[in-house]
């Protein structure tokens, strides 16, 4: 039982990392990784949204859509659920931490269209996860996302002051770095 859940977690964090292995959620991965602080903020916001959204979407699907035989509506209703969760999070963040709100700025609403969020919700359905499994899977995906985002931000912070050849400066060296990181994460394949 415990082993199952830890395997689920490790699988979501490392082996099937959403960003570097499944290539979901690449937009914030490139967009919010120029500074460590913003990356941390984004990580926290995404963790919160991902976990909450996977739980909400599970509930919506199993207690509303499935009984009514409306399984085909899952994508559109999940988008609705996620949008609401993100909006709610934004309001809370704006109230509790205006600076974080300012820092996250356009990125918070971006979580709405963060494919990782929708991906988690849909994968939960596909894999027939129960509620707890969905929660763990969502949380694991978020932790994996946060991990690579923070690592990547730390690297980009150093890249910013490093001597980078002119043609590679900016996004190019970022992409190269992301590619190398992805290669590194491939090494986790077969861990579980």
């Amino acid at each position, binding site marked *: 039982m415990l082993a199952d859940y830890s395997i689920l977690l490790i699988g979501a964090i490392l082996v099937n990392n959403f960003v570097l292995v499944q290539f979901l959620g690449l937009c914030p991965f490139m967009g919010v990784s120029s500074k460590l602080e913003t990356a941390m903020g984004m990580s926290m916001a995404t963790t919160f949204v991902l976990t909450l959204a996977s739980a909400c979407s599970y509930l919506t699907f199993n207690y509303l859509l499935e009984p009514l035989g409306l399984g085909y509506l899952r994508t559109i209703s999940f988008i609705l659920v996620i949008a609401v969760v993100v909006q709610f999070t934004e309001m809370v963040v704006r109230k509790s931490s205006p600076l974080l709100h300012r820092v996250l700025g356009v990125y918070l609403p971006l979580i709405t269209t963060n494919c990782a969020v929708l991906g988690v919700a849909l994968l939960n359905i596909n894999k027939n996860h129960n509620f707890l499994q969905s929660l763990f899977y969502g949380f694991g995906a978020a932790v994996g996302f946060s991990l690579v985002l923070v690592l990547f931000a730390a690297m980009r912070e150093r890249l910013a*002051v490093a*001597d980078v050849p002119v043609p590679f400066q900016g996004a190019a060296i970022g992409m190269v770095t992301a590619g190398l990181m992805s290669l590194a994460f491939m090494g986790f394949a077969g861990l579980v």
Partner: protein
Amino acid sequence: MRKIWDFHGGVHPPENKHQSLGKPINSAGIPPQLTLPLNQHIGAPAEPVVAVGDAVLKGQMIAKPLGLVSVPVHAPTSGTVVAIEDRQVAHPSGLQTRCIVIDTDGTDRWVEHAGLNDYRSLEREALLAHIRQSGIAGMGGAGFPTAVKLGVDPRQKPIETLIINGTECEPYITADDILMRERAAEIIAGVEILQHLIQPAETLLGMEDNKPEGIEAMLAASADKDMEVVVFPTKYPSGGEKQLIEILTGKQVPSGGLPADIGIVCQNVGTAVAIGRAVLRGEPLISRVTTVTGEAVAEPQNFDVLLGTPMRYLLEQAGYTPGRQQRLVMGGPMMGFTVPDPDVPIVKTTNCLLAPTVEELPPPPPAQPCIRCGLCAEACPATLLPQQLYWFARGKEFEKLESHNLFDCIECGACSYACPSNIPLVQYYRASKAEIVQLRRDQAKADHSKTRFEARQDRLQREAEEKEAQRAARKKAAEERARRAAEDGDTAEDPIQAAIARAQAKKAANAAGDQSDAESQRPAIAQMDPAQLAIERAKAARADAGEQSPEDKAQSHLSRLQERLAKSEAKLVASRNAGAEANVIEALEGAIEKLKPKLVEAEQALAAMRAEQSVQDSQPHALKANVEENAGEQADEQSGQKDAAQLAIERAQAARADAAYQSPEDKARANLTRLQDRLAKSEAKLAASREDGAEARVIEALEAAIEKLRPKLSEAEQALAELQAETET
């Protein structure tokens, strides 16, 4: 055997110490001229107490300390002060700073001086003051005032360990080594004074194992003393205060903290000698031992040199032959800096003068790109990340630099020494530190400006509101008056009466205007004595209670009087028309006659108040702000800090008090005489200025002033004449 710790990092540059150890300490003699910078230490520069042309004796104080973190400067020999001016000093910037220049007379006559025979019976503070007055600053290289460092009271902050620094880890320098070899007894004497001052539980003398003769001498001298000589392997920079503490005690000074925080005080052996001399012999710090070495001098050796001696003079003593691209370095090759000009003087912190040939100490090759080898991090004795700091310094990421503890860098140069790409890392750190300090200062200034700006905004708003309130009150009072007059006055009579009142008020205002010249704000005046202050407060309270300012009160008083007068006059007219009895008419006339002077008085009072108000309004803001601030403070605080403006106010107040006892006529007369005086004075000044051929502007200003005075004078004359006519009737 004592346990010895090690510190992280460190390097082993070639020592090059033997060259200058071949000879004993020599006296450098007295050069023809000495240049003494006023700032040879860390902290505020000293302030000269001699003038150009003064004869000074050896050991005489020529500049006194300014502030706590400062030490005095003494004349190193007898001679004459020939200049107090900006001269170039030994500083990497090559900038000039204020120096006292002394032409020596060669007689080397001492000022009267005596040691403190029994320093153990002295008060701690007295002994510290003596050390401070002897001009002693850290001799190891930084030059921090020693008395400040020793000022930690052992009763409040017990010092466990006194560490005497005889490490001298930097290559080439042997000044401390030779001192320990030759003057061990003097060091011990100084250490005993230090022990007496800070009462440590233990005293350690830290020495590197590359000074066998010095170790021997110190061991012999400290055999029966309460001091342990601790020898440890040679490594640069073990002589750094924090590093030495770690080697000897295993304790680390916390980031941003002082050694005293962990119960340790560190002093250099040279400083110990200076303290010993100052206390036991009464000799201030006027000379020091300086190593002169490098391949460009024929006889490298240590000199006992007078402070202020030009470096060129000292170098010539050692047989200096400058070569091509000759560099001259003050301090060692690791932490020293290139001296801009060999004529700059030796100062309290000059422990070494290095004159290397180009082959010996080649100019640093150009920096190559960082290859991220990490050697610098291995070498750093402060366990910092030099490479990371380098990148951040280049990217001007100051926050990152601070969070990576840039300020723990001791600028020892180990990282630059280890760097295979020859990157001048230390210079990056120094520049970034200065930049951060500058930014902090700017931020502090911005905050300060913000506070001032906001205070000013508040004040302007408050003033505007007050003015608005006064205007509203006046308007209300005027309306009230008009309403009452319309209600119960004779309408035909009223406009005429009002016109008369206005004319009278104007006249009174003019008369009062001159008086009010010298008057100033009421609240300020009220602070002159506590009793008056109390009265004023009570009045203010009453005024507050009735929501009336004094002016409003005067206003209402005036309107009341006017009403009474109007009524009486109306009655009189009515009585006359009705053909009333003569005695009734007479009584009314008498009453009116009585009312009139009262009315005039009230009008004058009101006008005076208004004039006061206007003076108040036209007060310059700065002064006003000052006065307003003061108004909130206590009277007793005030009396201590009366400024000139307040004194003037006080005088004006006194004059006014005198005037209050005079009759209107006397007042007018006094006013007239004053004006006449002023006019006469101004005219005299004008005449004088014209004769002196003063600037046209001055003469114009005086003429304008006289022009202004004249109408005032004629007005005053008129007023007096009117008053006299009145009294006659």
